């Protein structure tokens, strides 16, 4: 029988190893799997390469993971957001590496990683510093750069609903990177607000099919990043 439920965030992230590549869902706080990230802080894996659109905010969630010196490298499109102090400080101190990727290229590289496409061409960044050192090539008279797929050892994402097969439903713009990160990681770990019976999710409306999902933890009342930041909470 297939049942991807695990007992706790701690159990779900227990085998994330030093040096692992970890995709973390979310765009800002929307979709950020904060309880899974905090479990990863408790767990302590070091020298992680983390893929997320941003670098977190305040001193909770992704920002706290970075602040806890567990991240050796960030792959992201926008590391500089309101309320994001942790990353800039470490970056200026040369204590964290940054691979800056245009947001759409980041999304497509992740999707390609999940779809078995090792590389593709895109018009994005042609003629800019972000195309430097990359192969470029003309198709039909237009110049494109070649971009490589990104894969990860783990993905941490957040959903609204999940069944035991791992079929997922997200809420509004919290969907963002989750479905494609789920595809691109060897082990995809989901924290879900509600764990529902098989058959409760209409097959026509599944947003991330269970085949991409490995572990599910129910977190009924997830914390809200912006609220924690406003309250000045620091994790741990």
């Amino acid at each position, binding site marked *: 029988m297939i049942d991807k439920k695990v007992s706790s965030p701690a159990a779900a992230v227990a085998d994330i190893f030093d040096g692992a590549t970890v995709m973390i869902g979310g765009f800002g706080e929307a*979709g950020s799997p904060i309880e899974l990230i905090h479990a990863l802080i408790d767990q302590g894996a070091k020298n992680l390469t983390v893929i997320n659109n941003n670098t977190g905010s305040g001193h909770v969630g992704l920002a706290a993971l970075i602040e806890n010196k567990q991240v050796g490298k960030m792959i992201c499109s926008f590391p500089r957001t309101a309320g994001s102090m942790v990353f800039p400080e470490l970056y200026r101190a040369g204590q964290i590496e940054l691979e800056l*990727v245009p947001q*759409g290229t980041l999304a497509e590289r*992740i999707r390609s990683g999940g779809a078995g496409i090792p590389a593709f061409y895109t*018009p994005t960044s042609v003629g*800019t510093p972000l195309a430097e050192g990359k192969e470029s090539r003309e198709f039909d008279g237009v110049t494109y750069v070649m971009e490589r797929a990104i894969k990860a050892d783990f993905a941490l994402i957040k959903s609204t609903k999940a069944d035991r097969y791992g079929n997922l439903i997200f809420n*509004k713009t919290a969907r963002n990177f989750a479905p494609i990160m789920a595809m691109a990681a060897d082990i995809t770990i989901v924290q879900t607000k509600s764990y529902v019976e098989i058959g409760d999710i209409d097959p026509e409306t599944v947003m991330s099919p269970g085949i991409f999902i490995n572990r599910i933890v129910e977190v009924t009342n997830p914390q809200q990043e912006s609220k924690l930041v406003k309250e000045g909470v620091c994790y741990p």
Partner: protein
Amino acid sequence: MNSNTSNADTSNSETMTPWSRDQMAQRCAQDITDGSYVNLGIGMPEKVAQYVPKGREVIYHTENGLLGMGPEPTPEEYDPDLINAGKKAVTAVAGAAFFHHADSFSMIRGKHIDVCILGAMQVSKDGDLANWSTGAPDAIPAVGGAMDLVAGVKIIYIITQHTTKTGEPKIVDKCTYPLTGQAVVNRIYTDLAVIDVTNEGLALTELAPGVTFDYVQERTAAPLIDYTK
């Protein structure tokens, strides 16, 4: 065109009323046609939405996965999972659609979005845009979706003050800041003028009330062509 005949008194600003930020947004909004799919950058571009003329139906795309973005939520409507690319709380209109990031940028890169309105640090005479980085060594580089938008959206409008706070021209012969994209800008709306990027060069088509062509030219580091007739 009389660009070479009236170069006197160009700094006389008594009768000049440069457009305010709201007026710039309002002017830009005139060019958003009915039925357009539009992506608005963070900041001044967001203002454009409130000035789209009545009777035109425009669908706003936000690259974090929503087509059919609506205005700010009431406290009752507020949902932290419903935000725009600037991470501000928004709403979704009837007829909206949510999707994931790869699908969202397929809309952008695949040339399905009609218009994108962005701010600028610099725009060159060839339509090169620099709006993501000063290139300063201690800056934290952050690009977001800007490079994807300029590479993929059919029409790129820039809305910006004509000069920097210290009076430096933002419209230049060649950008000195790192580029966001090459030859991507179609039209520039400043507090002083509306300028089209054309194959012939930068064509100034409209002036703010009382502003003269030469006054604008003096504040522009690239040759302008007077199309105001």
